[in-house]
């Protein structure tokens, strides 16, 4: 049959790493359940727990100037769609997916807009060095970009990244280490040139 179609993710020794306790998935499930029944305080707790994750996921994908607004969008959308979540214990992975989808949607909607260069001198108060490192991370494959930003920007531990995003710890570990290796190579190259 020839069918042709016309088709054209006690840490006390290091203050920059998250000091929050390891995530309790059962607590999250309770909070998600309460939020679904209209408990806004519960949803606020979920925001406190997950806003760094959502921020990091978006920072890995959309222009920095848009990230904060999109974080808010993601939580509002999540609240509206909470009744669709079948397994409250999967809240983190579900929210991460919404954030990734929101980033895709951002690019779809803004296709016709010309993006401003990210390194305009007056556009950003960050140091040139920090901007250069961020740009290097953003050029890495997506699977490395997200865990690196969650670790290096948001200060989450590997274990926390896995628990919050619903990824396996093994997968996060591999992506963190491979991503860091590639980032070192990129920064070395740029440092030499």
């Amino acid at each position, binding site marked *: 049959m020839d069918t042709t179609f016309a088709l054209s993710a006690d840490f006390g020794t*290091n203050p920059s790493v998250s000091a929050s306790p390891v995530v309790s998935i059962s607590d999250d499930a309770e909070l998600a359940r309460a939020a679904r029944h209209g408990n806004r305080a519960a949803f606020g707790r979920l925001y406190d727990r997950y806003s760094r994750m959502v921020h990091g996921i978006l920072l890995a994908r959309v222009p920095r100037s848009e990230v904060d607004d999109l*974080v808010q969008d993601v939580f509002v959308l999540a609240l509206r769609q909470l009744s669709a979540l079948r397994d409250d214990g*999967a809240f983190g992975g579900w929210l991460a997916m919404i954030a990734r989808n929101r980033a*895709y949607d951002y690019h779809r909607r803004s296709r016709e807009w010309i993006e401003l260069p990210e390194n305009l001198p007056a556009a950003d108060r*960050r140091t040139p060095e920090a901007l250069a490192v961020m740009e290097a991370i953003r050029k890495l*494959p997506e699977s490395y970009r997200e865990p690196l930003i969650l670790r290096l920007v948001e200060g989450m531990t590997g274990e926390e990244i896995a628990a919050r995003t619903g990824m396996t710890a093994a997968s996060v570990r*591999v992506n963190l280490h491979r991503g860091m290796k590639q980032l070192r190579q990129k920064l070395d190259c740029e440092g030499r040139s």
Partner: protein
Amino acid sequence: MRNDYLWDGSGEPDPEVQRLERLLSEFRSYRPAPELPAANRYPSARLRWTAIAATVVVAAAGAWLATRTPPEGWQVARAGSGSGRLAVGETLETGAGGHATVKIGDIGVVEVEPNSRLRLIRARRNEHRMALEVGLIHARIWAPPRSFVVDTPSAVAVDLGCSYTLAVATDGAGLVKVTTGWVSFERDGRESFIPAGAACQTRPNLGPGTPYRQEASPAFRQALQDFDFARGGDPALTAVLSEATRQDAFTLWHLLMRGEPGQKERVYDTLAGLVPPPAGVTRAGVLRGDRKMLDDWWDQLGLGDTTWWRHLEGKWPESGAGR
């Protein structure tokens, strides 16, 4: 594991990682939670009675209005003929040269190409479903996974959060090409998970084939089609395996659950050569369809983690469904 500074800040500090942490902490955000509708409060007795009375009035008005409001549906804009509403149960046909844009509630948009026919099956806030009987659509969905489902004559396309193109031929065969995110093609417990940049065909009575990279070599795609739909058997599988590259690993991963006895072993060996199985994943375990081992191996493919879609749907491609 301790003593891994990059993992959790424990052990001997890595000066380069510490430098990056300091630099990049500038990008953190400290914005408070968004404004959300106020939580329920306990009103005074007078206010409660007022509220109850108002509720009765609103309910009565609602019941009256329910007989007057149009059934649930989608907004449709057709090129050259304005916009209208497609109700549940109704069919939309574009005809030659026709084109329509369908707004899927507030979760996405579907562009319908000429000579297409689709029927609206369900339009609820968190669940939208249509049947594409023939033709071509481009779907862009920004809702959580599994909010939008398209029935085709030979498989069901389930949106896992993405944009994709779906075509259905007059004989009921189908093809999905994924641009961003994921689509699942399902039928009778048989599922194919199709990531961005991949495609998957489906045939009447056979269901979804094995997903493949849109940029895979023509020889690879032809051999896979022969294996999936033309009883190509061992020769077709041999061609698939000899043409496979590291990027085709997700295709081979699906084949681990589809080949006949003897074929799965060959698929295992080739896949292990391209992406070595992680610790704890054994040949015997994979060949007997051990779900955890298969998941762990998938996580090595660099296409994202299996966990999120497992939690969301709890389904699994049937093991041993040979052709």
